[in-house]
């Protein structure tokens, strides 16, 4: 009989360690001991809204599915063959359960302060036992339609997807994660099973837990629930993207008090090496604060002039599928903010970034990373979504930050920030005539 293998990895400088278990079922399990009151567990699959054209390696044909199906499937996992819904099962242990779907993954999770292993058993059990019927699919269409309508009334969401559509021509980040009321109407239980059997293979999934736990006890629960499974590889069609943006502008009108803007910076330089991506992630994080943080010239000047408000901020995303940088906020004059952004970037390129700023911001990044270990939910979310599913190791990140150098960061700055990479999305208030 094949046994599970356990390895431990430790980073004494930050006082953290984790156990990696290659479970005999084929599942990767990560156990991060923490002496906190709250236990947190997350069981996820590398299946998100962008994976809409796929096949199991060896299959002749690709299957194309309606937009929003990964999210729909997530909802339907909460229904079970015994008629008891998943929330009711967790209610017996008192765990607080939830799930979410992003572009790249679907995550099932719970937190609790008691009866952790019982709750873990429920988690592993319901996610590995799909049960979809025609009736239950119909019932869910009404609920998700309201979730979609709620999103359609949300200006922040309109801004985000407007920006994605302006930046990307082909990438499925153009598509709303929940789909549309029309697209989800095309979903039936056969399609759900097809997606489930493709992506919810233990080889495409991982489990991560944190709290006052031991790997032995976690393995015991996994042994009880998980049957060894033949793992397979999934192939998805991910359309290629040009470095240039699809179009430089997106605007729409909604009921907002002040225009919302987002300046997107598109980047298609994505390494296939996870360690390189980790390095670039660190460089982009430090650039957020150097260029647009609370102490930056850009923020302070525009804030003093009243061009931006406290809602201003910069963020980025850099993973195996997409890479972008974004500066967003509220302004009465988004076009003026954009033109100041262009001038500011030019000036930074001409004068060069400041080494002092770099050191200061790297220190903040290091500290934020350490602070993230004060919560089991933050640890697990970061560990699984940003590291494991990217093929990387979170405990290596402390060294990546320590070793990050100014020249590399400057190089990343110059390669990401280029004129043809920018798009401006804006949500303007309604015209007087459109108000009720």
């Amino acid at each position, binding site marked *: 009989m094949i046994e599970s293998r356990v390895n431990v990895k430790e980073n004494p400088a930050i006082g953290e360690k984790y156990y990696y278990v290659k479970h005999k079922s084929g599942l990767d399990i990560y156990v991060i001991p923490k002496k*906190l009151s709250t236990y947190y567990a997350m069981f996820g699959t590398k299946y998100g809204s962008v994976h809409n054209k796929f096949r199991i390696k060896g299959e002749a044909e690709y299957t194309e599915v309606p937009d929003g199906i990964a999210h729909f499937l997530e909802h339907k996992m909460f229904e079970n063959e015994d008629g008891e819904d998943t929330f009711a099962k967790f209610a*017996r242990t008192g765990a607080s359960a939830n799930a979410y779907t992003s572009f790249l993954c679907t995550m099932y999770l719970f937190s609790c*302060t008691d009866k952790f292993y019982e709750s873990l058993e429920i988690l592993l059990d319901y996610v590995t036992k799909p049960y979809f019927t025609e009736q239950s699919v119909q*019932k869910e269409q009404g609920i998700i339609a309201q979730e979609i309508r709620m999103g359609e009334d949300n200006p922040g969401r309109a801004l985000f997807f407007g920006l994605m559509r302006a930046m990307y021509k082909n990438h499925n980040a153009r598509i709303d994660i929940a789909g549309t009321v029309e697209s989800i109407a095309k979903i039936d239980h056969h399609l759900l099973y097809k997606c489930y059997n493709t992506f919810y293979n233990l080889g495409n999934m991982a489990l991560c837990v944190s709290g006052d736990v031991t790997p032995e006890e976690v393995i015991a629960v996994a042994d009880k629930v998980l049957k060894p499974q033949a793992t397979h590889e999934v192939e998805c069609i991910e359309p290629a993207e040009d470095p240039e943006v699809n179009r430089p502008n997106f605007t729409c009108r909604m009921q907002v008090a002040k225009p919302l803007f987002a300046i997107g910076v598109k980047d298609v330089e994505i390494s296939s090496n996870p360690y390189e991506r980790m390095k670039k992630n660190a460089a982009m994080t430090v650039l957020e604060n150097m260029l647009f943080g609370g102490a930056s*010239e850009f923020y302070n000047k525009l*804030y003093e002039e009243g061009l931006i408000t406290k809602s201003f901020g910069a963020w980025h995303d850099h993973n195996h599928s997409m890479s972008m940088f974004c500066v967003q906020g509220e302004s009465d004059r988004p076009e003026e903010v954009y033109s100041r952004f262009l001038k500011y970037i030019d000036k930074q390129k001409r004068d060069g970034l400041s080494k002092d700023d770099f050191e200061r911001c790297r*220190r*903040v990044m290091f*500290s934020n990373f350490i602070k993230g270990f004060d919560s089991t939910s933050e640890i697990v979310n970061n560990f699984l979504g940003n590291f494991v599913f990217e093929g990387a190791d979170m405990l290596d990140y402390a060294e990546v930050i320590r070793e990050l150098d100014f020249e590399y960061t400057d190089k990343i700055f110059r390669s990401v920030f280029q004129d043809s990479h920018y798009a401006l999305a804006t949500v303007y208030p309604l015209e007087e005539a459109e108000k009720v």
Partner: protein
Amino acid sequence: MPPTRIKLADSVYLNVIETDKFKTNFISAEFFIPLRAETAAKAALLPSVLLRGTKKYPDMASLNRQFDYLYGSYIWPRNYKLGETQVIGFSSYVLADKYALEPTPIMSELLGVMEEIVFSPVTEGGVFRADYVEGEKRNLIDRIKAQINNKNYYAVKRCRDEMCRGEAYAVSELGEIEDVQAVTPESLYEFYKWIISGTRVELYFVGSFDIGKLTEQLRDIFGRCANISAPELKTEVIRRAEKVKEVIEDQPVKQGKLSLGFRTDCTLADRDYHVFAMFRELYGGSPTSKLFVNVREKLSLCYYCSAMGEAHKGIMIVSSGIDVANKQKAQDEILRQLELTRAGEITEAELAAARNSLKNSYRELYDNADSIKSWYTSRMLVGRDDSPEDAAAAIETVTAEDIANMAKRVTLDTIYFLNGTLKPDEGSDEE
């Protein structure tokens, strides 16, 4: 365990929870005043104006550089209401000294910056700098107006305001636009002097530090707030609704938002508040509650339907986002579930689920320093200091009958409906 409470001076207290489980230390300083229309706007402005600059760090850029230098230990402004009390102040999560890359007394230096912010603001002619005040007024007005952007929040707030119209609780902690406009550097400075010399001050520390040293440093800093004239803090409670008020507001959005406001006849000051907590949890507090299971899962009417309580004011708001055409259906079901609860139709499983879920949420508080602070601050206002663990123990004995009796005390006061006027396929024109 309740915090150790140390009196630093008259009306100035330090609350300490020692724990070594975090890599950060939490510190906050809060000032308590009655929630009133005359002062709400000034209270909302003050923390932001103080964060614009100090004598030593005269602008935002230099202050933020200092926070960065202290390992990203930002001091952020607080402004919220607890019943009819307004609380303003500052908080910060501070990296523990031992994780500093080079030896830095991060905590004591951070307290030095907090002292600067609270007691040494940049002044001009003996009052706040006019441009700082004007800038923050503009920002605050923007924030007040921006409340319309978030419909979920907006519909709850509107229901609460309609329900409590004429009561101090209806005063927004952000103030009204006209009141913000009327603030001058002089009037704000006058208000500031009162805040630091005539109010109740509560400091919180959660973490691991030399408490003797910390107490001395904080006494040096905040001891000057000593006063014997701090205003009394109390909340008027209307225990029952007389008749139901109904308000419908049209807006160009797709989804309707239904909010039902109730008077609960039970506040945190009452001995049986734990019974109300159980009732709210069972009725609309979790994914196994009556509202979630019936309005969402059985009838597919919505994505969310839940009940929120305000412990000091004794009110509860049920809110949901629905298709406009289903307004009556949703409202009927929400009220029918309340009737069933009153009639004692509560299963053992529902009772256990509510109890387990509440106990879990109480115990999870221990992992979040800011939540622990909020827990005890809220209790301190009504003279209690029971811990989350005490609360978990108290609900053990609550029965279905207790909950039914509590549900009978709850009365419907206001029905607010945000009526979406956009057709589903209508919308924002994209360019």
